[in-house]
């Protein structure tokens, strides 16, 4: 190619490139998704029984060009769990509201077969790795839009042995046949010896050894403890030997008392 024809072609090429860029820019502006309307199936507000608030679970919605810079910066800043700012004020007073409590228990019921069952996973997962589970659920977090519950039990390898997805990504999660099982309901409160006494723990603590995972800062409103700053829960709240399956004899044993002459 001669120099002349090259210099003739260059403005043409430049014109084509610029016009394509401009056309792309305006096309991008038409995209319906905005950064601010990013919603995810995990938001507490959106949580439904069978979560399908986004048409395809697991797909991250596209951002339009004018928001691109802000969104990328935001995403990078919030990429680490530790830097997520919790919106919970640790010193705020917590009042127990029976309505909220029932709502919380109702929400819990949605992904458990019965009280004490391992919850099903409401979001897509990596089918093979469970290091990816621990990345979020080892610590847990609560932000304005996201509630990541902390594991209520100590770290156990192989999460997927007990926790399965309730809507897998490779095909829609459907029940094959109807089932009439009604599971054990969660207790609404523990028994107290007298008004004002600390309630006894009305559930087993097996697999629920970290009280704060449900009753602490990442817990649902309604079942949060009124006193999260106290960290030694079992100092006041007695567990149930029966429900915890401890191998104690049925009846506490005593020495025989004095034999009184009649």
């Amino acid at each position, binding site marked *: 190619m001669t120099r002349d024809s090259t210099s003739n072609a260059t403005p043409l090429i430049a014109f084509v490139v610029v016009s394509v860029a401009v056309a792309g820019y305006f096309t991008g502006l038409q995209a319906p998704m905005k950064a601010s309307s990013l919603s995810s199936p995990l938001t507490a507000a959106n949580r439904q029984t069978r979560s399908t608030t986004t048409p395809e679970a697991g797909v991250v919605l596209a951002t339009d060009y004018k928001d691109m810079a802000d969104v990328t910066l935001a995403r990078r800043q919030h990429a680490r769990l530790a830097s997520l700012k919790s919106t919970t004020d640790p010193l705020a007073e917590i009042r*127990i509201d*029976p309505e909220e*409590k029932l709502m919380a228990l109702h929400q819990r019921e949605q992904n458990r*077969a*019965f*009280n*004490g*069952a391992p919850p*099903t996973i409401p979001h897509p997962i990596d*089918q*093979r*790795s469970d290091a990816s589970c621990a990345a979020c659920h080892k610590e847990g977090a609560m932000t304005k839009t996201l509630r990541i519950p902390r594991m209520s039990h100590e*770290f*156990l*390898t*192989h999460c*997927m*042995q*007990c926790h*399965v*997805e*309730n*809507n*897998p990504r*490779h*095909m829609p999660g*459907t*029940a*094959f*046949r*109807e*089932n*009439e*099982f*009604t599971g*054990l309901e969660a*207790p*609404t*409160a*523990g*028994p*107290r*010896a*007298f*008004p004002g006494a600390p309630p*006894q723990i*009305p*559930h087993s603590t*097996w*697999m629920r050894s970290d009280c704060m995972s449900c009753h602490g800062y990442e817990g649902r409103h309604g079942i949060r403890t009124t006193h999260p700053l106290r960290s030694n829960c079992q100092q006041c709240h007695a567990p149930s030997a*029966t*429900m*915890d*399956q*401890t*191998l*104690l*004899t*049925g*009846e506490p044993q005593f020495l025989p008392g004095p034999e009184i002459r009649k």
Partner: protein
Amino acid sequence: MNGDLQPRPDTVQRRQFIKASAMAAAAAVAGGTGFLLPILATEPAAGVQWEKAPCRFCGTGCHVQVGVQDGKVVAVAGDRNAEVNKGLLCVKGYHVGSALYGKDRLTKPLLREGAQYREISWEEAIKTIADRIEAAPERFAFYGSGQWTIPEGCAAQKFMKGGLSNNHIDPNARLCMASAVTGFLATYGVDEPAGCYDDLDVCDVLIMWGNNPAEMHPVLFSRVIDRRSRGEKITLIDISTRRTRTTEACQHYLEMKGHGDLAIANGIAHLLIRNGTYNRKFVESFCSFKAPDDQNPNLHGKPISFADYQTFLEPYTPEHVEELSGVPADQIRMLGDVFGNPELKITSLWCMGMNQHTRGTAINSLVHGVHLLSGHFGTPGNAPTSLTGQPSACGTVREVGTLSHALPGGRVVADAEHRQQAEDFWNVPAGRINPTPGYHTVKMWESFCTPTDKGGDIGTIWVQVTNPGQTLPNLNKLFNPKGDNKAGLEDKFLIVSDVYPTATTRLADLILPSAMWVEKNGVVGNSERRTQQWFKMVDPPGDARDDCWQTIAVAHELFKRGTDGMKDRDGRFLFEVKDNDNKPVPVWEWEHYYDVNVDEHLFEEYRQFTRLKHKDLAPYSEYVKARGLRWPVVETDGQWKETHFRFSEGFDPYVEEGTGIQFYHSSTHNDRAQIWFHPWIAPAEVPDDDYPFMLCTGRVLEHWHSGSMTRRIPELSRAMPGGYVEIHAEDAAAYGLRNGDKVKMESRRGALVIPVWIDGRGKPPRGTVFIPFFDETLLVNDLTLDAVDPFSKQPDYKKSAVRIRKVQP
């Protein structure tokens, strides 16, 4: 052990008093001061009774605590006092309670009329079965199950072999454990593992030979990997034909072609000898060598010398093993080093990869041989451990002997002395037991699907607790003809006792609704020789009744009609059960079935059989108290003590002092185990130009076997709704396939249209595809082949050749 977890009456009263006074006080306070209490306390988990039971599902045998409220199961918890699982369960175990409550539970006996069914009474059902048996008792067959409880197996076994003199009784475990059994017999002279799950708690190396315990025996697998997360150093090695969830937890992944395991095992033995790292002392003290006898193939083979053994292994250099198996020579050398290290404690695990194999007996023998050759045997942590898939394949099938050639307690019908012992224990006339083995599973169904005038001499099959219409290989030959009007099988009759409609009830002539799991008493035996018991906790729905009762009811109907086979030596009914006052109870009448514990009666009768092969069982009452006991359970100083490690001095009470290790059932009668040589042989079907893919089948975590129970549990069904074919991404690209596309898979035997999941949960290599078999609408066994291992008669579900065609939407 205290199994009583119910609150005592006086405790309850005390609690109620406190509650009442609290409520009164609260009312007073609330009224007086305006102090708002939260929702008034109810009795925590009011009225829930917790009882123990083994889980209904796999062969691990986890113990659960079942919560029953108002006559229904409402919750399940792991049993913290169980040694098997220590309070842990898997997702199936947690949801096992829901298995009872699928809406389409069978509740009434159904008799086929044309294309539909008519509800009939139990009397009519029992009479129908008795009619068929009476008309042609030698053409009747019983297809049983590794999910049979031990008493159910005892009843069927005695009914057939000790009653009708008919040996056509075979279980579905023929399709899963038969090669493991023949491997044990060929090596040790007696069946079942020497080690137990305690090995998992101390091993340094865990080798998976073609199984996927992360999904199939999750509680056992996490028992090992939890140790690692606590800081212990354990090496996990996965020898497999595709990547699975297990692979992700392993340090070494050895990807092999089908039958590569034969080459690998020989390769390890070759290296042990070449490097001089085999355990000379162990071999010289406790082992002999065997090779197959091609003139007269059997489990004894022909004895060979060590020099012969070494010569046979010459060709299996790491490079040659690489050619045969596809595993790089370096990794074979790594395995040779691992086994050559006497300091390491090595446990090998296997399940269907080695058993569903046309050379299954061979590979089982070879893996035992590698452990024996290297001396990794007999101490805690050193164990070749075969795992079972069903909850009682060991307890019922292998120990009660519900196989076409076997009698209870490790005996065989072909042996006159064994027959005489069985006849004595069962109190039946001498000569009652038929010495000719009956038909094994594949032969039984082949015969059933062959017209009578063409030699199909099985006319009636009674199926209990299993789903052959989905799980038999090559269904178009072994099952589907039953539903074909032109197949000439109009005179064949299929009876199915089950809990839900399945692929089998689809072609049944008589469907019997059955009780399941905690709707009946039961005793089962898991993979580590642990026999476990439970009591009935809830009632079965509708008219569903125990399988054991069904067998006894049919037996009694025949007894009333004068069938001699139903009388014992004294002319009394074969299944006469007496109460504590020594009066017979009419257990064939359903209203009286639970007047006594029939399970206990059958179990105590069966216990006597177990002494011969030193698989001693304790009295039934001991199992009520315990979370299972591992046999041999021997009474020492008034206590019943279980055995952790067989054949090892100090652990096994039957090992003589000073012997160290004693294989007291040695097939060569010299207390030695047999190390076998078997050559590598190609699979029965390999991919070729017409059918270029190798099809492997198997399971997934969420669904247990044919899914008839787990697919009706919403949490499990939603997690894994349906079947699919796993395929490598590049293979998919070559066919233009995307995730979810439907493909037609064809083999020489059948075809299937199925959706694709690229690099699904498992990652198959190029040229291999994988289809799980839990989906009854996607019957992968239309494609599989029915070639069997020559000794165990177990088919190979892991290697069939298929081709793929994209289905245009």
